[in-house]
């Protein structure tokens, strides 16, 4: 699992590379939460382009981030979501809590 960050305005962009399962989500959760606090970010935006596997642990991780970001008045967004990842996102009903954007630019603008 590789995790990279870019800060755009008050949105922390999280670039994930690898497989989203229970094992990697434990690491992602810690690393993202630390960076979110350190950067005093408002919103979280996940780049899913290099996610080549995801199970329901990924849903749990996203819901967890939604809860902590909501406390700070921020939003969570996703972009570059593959059709495979989209299937489990749709199944989980998580779209009620966070939007999937078609591009980074669109997301940054919407979250600003």
């Amino acid at each position, binding site marked *: 699992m590789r995790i990279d960050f870019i800060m755009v305005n008050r949105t922390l962009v999280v670039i994930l590379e690898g497989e989203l*399962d*229970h094992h990697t989500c434990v690491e992602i959760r810690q690393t993202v939460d630390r960076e979110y606090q350190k950067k005093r970010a408002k919103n979280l935006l996940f780049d899913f382009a290099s996610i080549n596997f995801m*199970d329901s642990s990924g849903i749990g991780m996203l819901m967890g981030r939604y809860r902590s970001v909501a406390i700070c008045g921020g939003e969570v967004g996703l972009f570059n979501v593959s059709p495979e990842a989209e299937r489990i996102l749709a199944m989980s009903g998580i779209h009620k809590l966070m939007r999937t954007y078609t591009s980074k630019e669109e997301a940054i603008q919407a979250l600003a």
Partner: protein
Amino acid sequence: MPKKNSMQIQFSSNSSNESFARVAVAAFVSQLDPTMEDLYDIKMAVSEAVTNSIIHGYENREDGQICIKCAYEDELVSIEVIDKGKGISDIEEAMTALYTTSIDEERAGLGFTVMQSMMDEVQVFSEVENGTTVKMKKSLGVE
């Protein structure tokens, strides 16, 4: 290609083995030349069952043993994920969507729901203090 084959893997309840379990099952099922989508479905179902054994069955202890039995006959793949962990008292309740007993872990309560939606058949056998067996079946190339 053989139209009948079986294998079995055993490993400790260490979360880094979740990925190993998926890859091993996928490598075996690949002998049937499945579609990418069928293979992804099977990896998801295996991942959910193995994760449950680690988190719930063995409550994150790393010294438990998990066994996966995998076989196919023609296009029918069957997979069993077996743990000797704490077991489930009410299986029906456990299989309800969004139901989870985890508090500190961030669980969506969707593990069984994913297994049922990815596989054609999911059966759960469990005995409290004696472990859980999840039996799953999927016919490849069938909608």
